[in-house]
């Protein structure tokens, strides 16, 4: 479920990034890379788990599924926080800089 949530997040973010091109002022690329990297890593995790559990991997208990969904959504929230922090630090539009360094008349 975590893998599924991350893959959806990666696909949606990439579609938004593509639509906004060539404007990269929102640094959406960072979010795309993060989600795709995590998705690939969780894919390996899933393959190893499948090798261990077999077909049972596809029929998880409801409680496990809910926990994994909760984890997946938390992961997305964490990625969004990391992205917002990077966006504010890099400040490509100079919004923060303009706010902090207001010229005195």
């Amino acid at each position, binding site marked *: 479920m975590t893998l599924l949530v991350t893959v959806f997040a990666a696909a949606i973010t990439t579609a938004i990034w593509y639509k906004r091109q060539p404007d990269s002022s929102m640094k959406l690329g*960072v979010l795309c*890379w*993060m989600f795709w*990297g*995590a998705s*690939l*890593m969780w894919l390996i995790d899933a393959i190893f788990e499948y090798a261990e559990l077999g077909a049972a991997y596809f029929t998880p208990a409801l409680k496990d599924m809910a926990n994994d969904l909760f984890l997946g959504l*938390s992961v997305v929230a964490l990625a969004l926080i990391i992205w917002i922090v990077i966006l504010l630090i890099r400040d490509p539009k100079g919004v923060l800089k303009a706010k902090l360094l207001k010229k005195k008349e």
Partner: protein
Amino acid sequence: MACFLVPMTEAIVATVAKKVIEKKEKKAGVQTVTSADGFKMEKTPFSQKLGWLNKMLWGGSALLAFEHVWHGEVVPYFPFLTAAGEGPEAVSEMLHEMATAGVCMAAIVTVVWIGMLLVSKSLEKRALKALPAVK
């Protein structure tokens, strides 16, 4: 247990490599390629391409580290990895997981990145061939 440490280690190495390559590229100046018709195109520097790998590795391992905290496999106090305090059997299991799942995670990200390098190279070539038509 601690599989994310392998891609994280690769991320550290790749970040250092990116810094070194970036410096060299700055010294060498902007690389351009010229088509048969004399068109010049700025090439995407390799350091920028290495940045794709960095972001995937750092992002992926950060999110994976969070998952390990979620499952109680990583704790914010010494020895940080729960397995490290559970005896040699748990440590051996952890190392085994790092050597199998961890290495595979780092490898798949790297393989995908190499694939992207090949695709971008062919796209650059194609764009260069198409340039005279744009003219």
